């Protein structure tokens, strides 16, 4: 995923504003960055590597101009390099373009342009856009007409912005990629995400697919592809720009792990009446599905597996699907409610799966963290998890909030009035705090940061936790880690277990699931694998474990959230021991807006 920014109306500070915006978007991609400022010419400065490289370059040779755009890139076409970095220009260097997304028909367009004499300097799909604009300009089109003509030629997903030599406007548009405008009294901003300009304004306008915006010193204007003006609502965002600061923590991920009690409080606020024994969700009033299909990717898929289990426990058929698979081989939907779980609300695979479901007549529900995101606008219902912005690429607090929100959803949609379970949910912020305060994960990480592989096992609600624990560890430590349903271990994976592959077993309660997991632990113990037990101390797993990560006793559904916190800390401290780039793991981006 890439990040784009733009600024008009602060002529003396354009570069500073762009650099600030890019630094706030660095989490979206970071293998290269660049800016273009338009004055009588277009000045482009771009560099491979982290944003710091670009910062050094502009220190000595600062481009200036009243309008500008900037980009941080995460490669989909062409390896990271200076020449593949954005912005891209036309042959004469009169137009500069930045792009987030994929242009599917770029090869065909490129061949055509090459045949017409255009010279390409990069391997990117984006570069066709400035050349398309150039040829339209050559045919006598105005800047705006040329921009629209170029967009008309391309297919795919994109948020695109362009500036012109001698022009005082930025033009932008979107299709399946996020793009927001920031509105201030004297200045207007554009970006893939609000944090880029949140320091300057809290008023935002969300562009819809196919809408074009023109921004100049006099203000902004949004229109359709046909050029008809569109009346847009200005939203006010209520979170703090600095919420995205690290506030003294070594890493955003650690900060976000520690923020979970607060995030959970926000998620539960005003939705839980424990003494009255009910959960009320105004936004889902009347939603009583007879069956549920969850679609999601990555961490959100693990949350979806958990959510499906909650509904099944309440007697409602429910399944979780990987969104990318759901699109290619959709199951029969029947009268199921299709629920998309996506932190960013922009995950391309999940959006496609929901569109597929909608096309087949299904009602859809979005479970997301981002207000105004594409998924929230496209689904019939939206339940916000209210976790606040998450910067670390590896999801932590948003997973916990997803699980809490899924509990709320399940309580409300199944008319479950179990006071004890609702009470446990209400206690979740404080029990998570207790896990954070008392965790010994750091010392366990110290003992095992050099292992060959890590295997996570769990049953029932703890199975998705095992998967998520493994995903977290592989994302930020680059070590091999896998999660298994505990019962599956003996059907194959046991062959991988050695004395240098710790097995992390999640066991809560003292029921049948726990007893069976303890038996699985005995199997690996017999093969000399170190055992790390994550437990509430109710079963006798401690007898077979080399290390114990303890969580407070609670209800099974909340125990899963607590166990996950221990696994987050284990992954974090292991990665820290290994000196990894925890907030920006290699090859990964925060949300994946391409399929």
């Amino acid at each position: 995923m890439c990040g784009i920014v733009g600024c008009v109306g602060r002529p003396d500070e354009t570069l500073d504003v762009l650099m600030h915006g890019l630094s706030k978007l660095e989490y979206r991609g970071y293998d290269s960055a660049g800016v273009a400022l338009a004055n009588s010419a277009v000045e482009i400065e771009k560099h491979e590597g982290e944003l710091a490289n670009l910062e050094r370059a502009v220190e000595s040779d600062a481009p200036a101009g009243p309008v500008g755009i900037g980009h941080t890139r995460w490669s989909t076409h062409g390896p990271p390099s200076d020449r593949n970095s954005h912005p891209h220009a036309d042959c004469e260097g009169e137009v500069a373009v930045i792009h987030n997304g994929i242009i599917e028909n770029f090869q065909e367009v490129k061949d055509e342009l090459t045949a017409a004499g255009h010279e390409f300097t990069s391997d990117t799909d984006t570069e066709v856009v400035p050349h398309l604009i150039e040829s339209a300009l050559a045919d006598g089109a105005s800047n705006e007409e040329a921009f629209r003509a170029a967009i008309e030629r391309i297919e795919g997903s994109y948020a695109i912005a362009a500036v012109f030599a001698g022009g005082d406007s930025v033009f932008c548009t979107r299709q399946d990629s996020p793009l927001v405008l920031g509105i201030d009294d004297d200045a207007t901003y554009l970006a893939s995400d609000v944090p880029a300009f949140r320091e300057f304004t809290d008023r935002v306008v969300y562009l819809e697919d196919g809408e074009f915006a023109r921004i100049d010193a006099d203000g902004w204007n949004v229109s359709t592809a046909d050029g008809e003006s569109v009346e847009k609502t200005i939203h006010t965002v209520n979170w703090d720009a600095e919420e995205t600061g690290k506030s003294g923590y070594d890493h955003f991920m650690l900060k976000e792990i520690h923020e979970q009690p607060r995030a959970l409080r926000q998620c539960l606020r005003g939705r839980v009446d424990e003494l009255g024994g009910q959960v009320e969700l105004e936004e889902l009033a009347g939603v009583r599905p007879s069956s549920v299909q969850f679609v999601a990717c990555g961490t959100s898929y693990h949350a979806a597996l958990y959510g499906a289990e909650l509904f099944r426990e309440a007697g409602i058929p429910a399944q979780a699907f990987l969104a990318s698979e759901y699109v290619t081989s959709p199951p029969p939907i029947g009268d199921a409610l299709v629920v998309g779980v996506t932190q960013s609300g922009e995950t391309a695979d999940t959006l496609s799966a929901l569109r597929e479901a909608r096309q087949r007549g299904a009602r859809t529900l979005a479970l997301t963290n981002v207000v105004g995101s594409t998924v929230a606008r496209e689904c019939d219902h939206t339940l916000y998890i209210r976790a606040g912005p998450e910067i670390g690429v590896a999801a932590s607090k948003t997973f916990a909030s997803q699980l809490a929100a899924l509990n709320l959803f399940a309580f409300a949609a199944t008319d479950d009035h179990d006071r004890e379970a609702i009470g446990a949910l209400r206690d979740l912020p404080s029990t998570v705090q207790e896990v954070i305060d008392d965790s010994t994960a750091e010392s366990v990480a110290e003992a095992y940061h050099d292992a060959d592989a890590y295997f996570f096992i769990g049953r029932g609600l703890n199975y998705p936790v095992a998967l998520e624990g493994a995903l977290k560890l592989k994302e930020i430590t680059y070590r091999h880690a896998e999660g298994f349903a505990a019962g599956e271990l003996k059907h194959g994976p046991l062959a991988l277990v050695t004395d240098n592959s710790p097995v992390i077993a999640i066991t809560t309660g003292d029921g049948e699931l726990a007893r069976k997991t303890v038996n699985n632990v005995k199997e690996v113990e017999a093969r000399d694998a170190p055992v790390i037990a994550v437990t509430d101390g109710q079963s006798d797993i401690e007898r077979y474990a080399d290390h114990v990560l303890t969580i407070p006793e609670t209800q099974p559904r909340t125990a899963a959230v607590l166990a996950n916190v221990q696994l987050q800390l284990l992954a974090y401290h292991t990665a820290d021991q290994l000196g990894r780039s925890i907030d920006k793991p290699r090859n990964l981006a925060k949300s994946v807006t391409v399929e």
Partner: protein
Amino acid sequence: MSVRTAVVLAAGEGNRLRPLTYNRPKPMLPAANRPILGYVFDALIDAGIERITVVIGYKRDRVQEHFGPTYRDTPLDYVVQDKQLGSGHALLAARSSVDEPFLLVNGDRVFDSGLVADVVAEFDAYPDAPAALGVLEHRDVRRYGAVALHEGRIDEIVEKPESDDFRLINAGVYAFRTGIFDAIEATERRDGELQLPDTLARLIDEGEDVRGVRVDGLSPHATYPWDLLTVTQEILARGRVDEPAREQGVWVDDTSLVHESATLQAPVVVGPDCEVGPGAVVGPDVALGRNVTVEANATVTRSVLDGDTRVGPGSTVLDCVAGQDVTLGPGTLVPGGQTDVRIGTHVHEDRSLGAVVADRADADGGVTLEPGTLVGPGARLHVGVRARGEIPAGAEVLD
């Protein structure tokens, strides 16, 4: 105001407030239903401070997590003091983030913004003075840092003086120029610690003009757990509460649910996400932190119940300080009243204290806490236990 920067010391544990400080530093303890440190930041920002450096150490995560990178749009810069070796040592930790004259205050005591302005005004009036500090009259100077003030100039500064010659004490609110850092470094350590009063004494000896200004607007110091009750009473009496008022002296957050048959007696504050059940009576002089539950027919009077604490149905709780996530089961009895309380080796006579119950302690049900009981963090009192004295951390009390 000429001074724009403040340094707040928030690294200390506060030994004498144990067992409440098991999981957090003293500045994070509740005054009414917010951390003391929040009131300190408020006073600084109200006085015109634009930038705050917070020195953190003991259980620093709790401060960072609670306040984050900004407070009321004022940037907070965190610096870490790994070992707590005195106030001078703490201030040195902030050296790299301060490059202009600044205020220094302790993060564990509530004060008014006017006090800050008074100290700064004196400081501005004497540009050659390296420091100005607030002083106040006190009847018992022997427990504090005493000063002798002569025409606005401090002649002498003595920690815990043995003589009766002094009647002013150091209020712990200072304005400094950046030269103070060198002066601290040049100060000799005493018992391994670097204390600011030693540096000031040295400056005075060298003939420097250290200014003193009489101030008021300082809340009572929270030295011992029962002081939190007094501080809370004062804050409620003065209405320094964020929650909206339902009626005179009754503040309830909009996100809380109070049953229509429950009674809130002023002054009382109910924080966010709380639930108060049918027939419960809460107040006067009660502060409920966030997500506190008071179940049906429970009575809570003159108490501070911090976040996530739960009072079971039919309980009676008087003069009680409860930490976070405490569970007082059904029918818990904390009758309150005056008693002698032992803290360490010292016995404090005739304190009004029902009980202090530290974070995550659980009383199963039908438990009685005799006046002055201190329950350690994570302790568990089984059904029907009658507890007195000090219950250690993590203890399990069966009968």
